[in-house]
């Protein structure tokens, strides 16, 4: 069972205080989008072996959403950061680069 830190209230707690909600940084497509765009928004999800960006909510806590960068194989948590971002901030990417040199998004490991 993981432990995570909510960047909003600062609590470090076990997984039972949180709720996982899949891949982060999806771009919403609404009316006027093509079928392909909409399909990718609604259904296509990354399932990397390695670095992954996820949405979590501190539901048994402050109730706020946040993002987590972690490794899906080792379960290492690089960091958690604001949900109000459309892509991982540079400092998050730097942190991951530090732990996983040569890593790039989409490359998995």
């Amino acid at each position, binding site marked *: *069972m993981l*432990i995570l830190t909510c960047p909003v209230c600062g609590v470090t707690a076990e997984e039972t205080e949180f709720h996982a909600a899949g891949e982060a940084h999806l771009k919403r497509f*609404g*009316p006027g989008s093509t079928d392909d765009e909409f399909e990718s928004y609604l259904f296509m999800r990354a399932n990397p072996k390695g670095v992954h960006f996820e949405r979590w909510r501190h539901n048994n806590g402050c109730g706020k*959403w946040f993002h987590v960068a972690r490794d899906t194989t080792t*379960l*290492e948590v690089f960091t958690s950061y604001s949900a109000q971002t459309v892509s991982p901030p540079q400092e998050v990417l730097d942190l991951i680069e530090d*732990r996983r040199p040569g890593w790039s998004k989409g490359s998995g490991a």
Partner: protein
Amino acid sequence: MSTRLATGGRLLNTDKPVNFAFNGKQMRGYEGDTLASALLANDQMLMGRSFKYHRPRGVVASGAEEPNGLVNLGSEGKFEPNQRVTTTEIFEGLEATSQNHWPSLEFDVGAINKHLSRFLPAGFYYKMFMYPRAAWKHVYEPIIRHSAGLGKAPKTTDVDTYEHFYAFCDVLVVGGGVAGLEAARTAGRSGAKVLLLEQTEHWGGRAPVDGGTVDGKPAAEFVDDLVAELQGMDNVQMRSRTMGAGVYDHGYVLGYERLTDHAPQKSGPRHRLWRIRAGHVITATGAIERPLSFAGNDIPGVMLAAAVRDYVVNWGVSIGDRTVVVTNNDNAYLTAIALKHAGLDVPAILDARVLPQDSMLMEQAKALGIRVMMGHAIASVKGGKRVTGVTVCSQAGEGAALEEIACDAVAMSGGWSPVVHLWSHCGGKLRWDTAQACFSPDLDNAPKGADGMGFVTPAGAASGMFPLDDVLCDAHAAADGVVTSLGFKLPKDVTAPSAERREEAPMAPVWLMPQGASVKLREKTWLDYQNDVKVSDVRLAAQEGFVSVEHAKRYTTLGMATDQGKLSNINGLATLAGALDADIPTVGTTTFRPPYHPISMASIGGEARGPVFQPIRRTPMHDWHEANGAEFEPVGQWRRPYAFKRGSESTHDAVNREVKNTRTNMGLLDASTLGKIIVKGPDAGKFLDMLYTNMMSTLKPGKCRYGLMCSENGFLIDDGVVARVDEDTWLCHTTTGGAETIHGHMEEWLQTEWWDWDVYVANVTEQYAQVAVVGPNARKCLEKLGGTDVSKDALGFMEWVDGELGGFKCRIYRISFSGELSYEIAVDASHGQAFWDALMVAGNDLGVMPYGTECLHILRAEKGFIMIGDETDGTVIPQDLGLHWALSKKKEDYLGKRAQERSHMADPTRWKLVGLETTDGSTLPDGAYAVGEGTNANGQRNMIGRVTSTYHSANLDRGIAMGLVLNGPDRMGEVIDFPGTDGKTYHARIVDPVFYDKEGEKQNV
């Protein structure tokens, strides 16, 4: 025979005799005895029968690794099967019965299996029971079911209680032997918060038995001093009788504390499951001695050498008068020496090794007059229910008998295996230690924690360090390294204790005794005692192609019993490796999974049983409902009255009465469970327009509007009435089950997509008790209460007002889910019951009756109103339900709009909502499917629709239903067939879904 010695027994309090019973026979032991030592002291060597062949079995070990000594403990509400005699402390009045035999332990019919053993090889059940097929159900399965299982399943409810406990520490040390104690002290002296767990009731592990000196003191004294020192440290917590059961991700560890097993009269919970988060875990879990594989090694009286030593030293119990020691290492010599010191005879030590010179321990043994036979082995053990002697052979040969030695006990040692279970639970890797022939933790591949660094460190014997001085140095160094990594610092003067080094000759791996044992011997050579797996079975598995260790395990059941192969694993792997002509590390190990040792199911459940098995949500009027005949139904975690039964009335009759009365007089419904969410802010209107399919921003303050919510997939997820409170405030009602999810749904979109919109939401569901006052007399009832004007002109349909009724401050909504004149009135929850009482009084001569959810359903179905969860199932869109009027055409976007444009969603052949009326007035079965012409690719009849809601309408005196039907709205009047599961086919006419008061006159009064 096994017996209690006149002296010895360092753990016993001989002033305190303890009476207990085994298979109904009264016996006596002492305080400090385990059930194993007490049974042995009473010459009860035979303790159970093996699983497959029902062979007589006695105890082999003295601790948690024991495979044979399993008994049923207690009776009635305290009955528990499969309890290990070696880990059960005796108490006055303990009752134990042996397992897995019929009719008695001494004479067991199932033992016939042992004569059939050549027909019961590995994988026999896969082979034997295949044909004829029908025989499985009628012959094989009943027989197997009758004989399967170890203990009996309890028949009555467990009377004990259990609990969880969340604990946090910097360093968790598992194991209270010398390594664990030393690691805890070192870590403690750095200032770190330390928790130390020990599975037994005693500290010090093997050291007090095995002796030696530390810092000039005997080991036992060193342990006592160390324990005292630790008890004096504020930052160190010690827990005996608490096993480290499992290590999980991110430093999560389960500890299993047994609080009253040894003293059932004590109050409080029986077991406590510690849910520990540790910064770092030190596994000081020691090592387990391995049996040797020789013919007859399962006959009662053959035991692990260290266990024989434990029984003599700890409990003053002699296993036999004459004990033959058989070994491949020096450690077992300690047993021979201990037995001699206790005045018992050791006719020979059979040492499989051939050594150039004697070691210190060998010299000591010889000096005591013990005959040491190097290069020798046991060819076979003589005896049935008890050892009577051994046949000696050369280890190098094939088992030709050289001589027979009469004896009544055999102490065997095949070397030691570190307890690597906890290290391995969360991914710690192992390396093969060739010198000691065991798997040890590979320190370069520790389990990784949240920060990506190793979070488990083994210490002492658990890391493959066996001599006492190595154990202490390793434990000290491990703890030092751990606290340093956690940012603590040891004071400079802290050093490792120093133990006197006892030089030992190297062990020699022996996986089969004698080395060239014939098939006949191998068939009597046990690897796994509990599951009856022999050397011959593993060889057969290899021969039949089960070359992967995981496959071989499952094929032979090696290591799959309740002891999880603590004794058998390494010997089994070595045997498999031998059969495959591979080396042991290549074959590898099976996976170590938690728990280390079985823990009670109830401890996992903790407090969650009986009334608190799960949360039950109650409305402010719950107690009234209960006192007034309510039959409850679960709606999520809520319990809502399904119907209120009067006297001897059936539930069905109660529902019909409520349905009729509500349409004729008036009814009260507890609607408190409906979700109520305040949405407020400058962007609230824009936000609600995105959430609902219809337009909410144009709603006028004081007005209500029914709205639909869809997911981004386009599917209907919730519905309810929205009231506009003021310029920037709305109150959204959700379904009963939807309050929390819709509140979460709103927060999700606000926080993760439209975070620049100024909107706040608050879930105020439970602030209010809400009552629906429904029926022709509803207004009269409210007028009788007096207060706010609720007349047709003052409060029109779909309007709301803040006011007062009968002195209660309230909010009154004129809305209807029944087609009747209806008000929903919200008062503060703390006044809910009083308000309900006032309505019951006011409605007394107006025919008031409370009604439940079934009546609510029937009333709405009579009106053709949809219900989320009945008409919808997560695949239904508003268009399917003919709710086009609630889909705003003016809005560019709302959640689900784009999805509803997808080709499958816009497909005209989607099933659509219609009303259904059986031609004979009967009630359609719920969920029934309508069949059409032709068959599908699988030869099944084509489906053309299904029933979504179906009830008997007391008002219309016939069955009414709604359903989704292919081209339904275009087929009005057509009769379609619904085959029921009762063999009857129902014929139903497609009709308009509004069955009652089509013009809506009743609600517009």
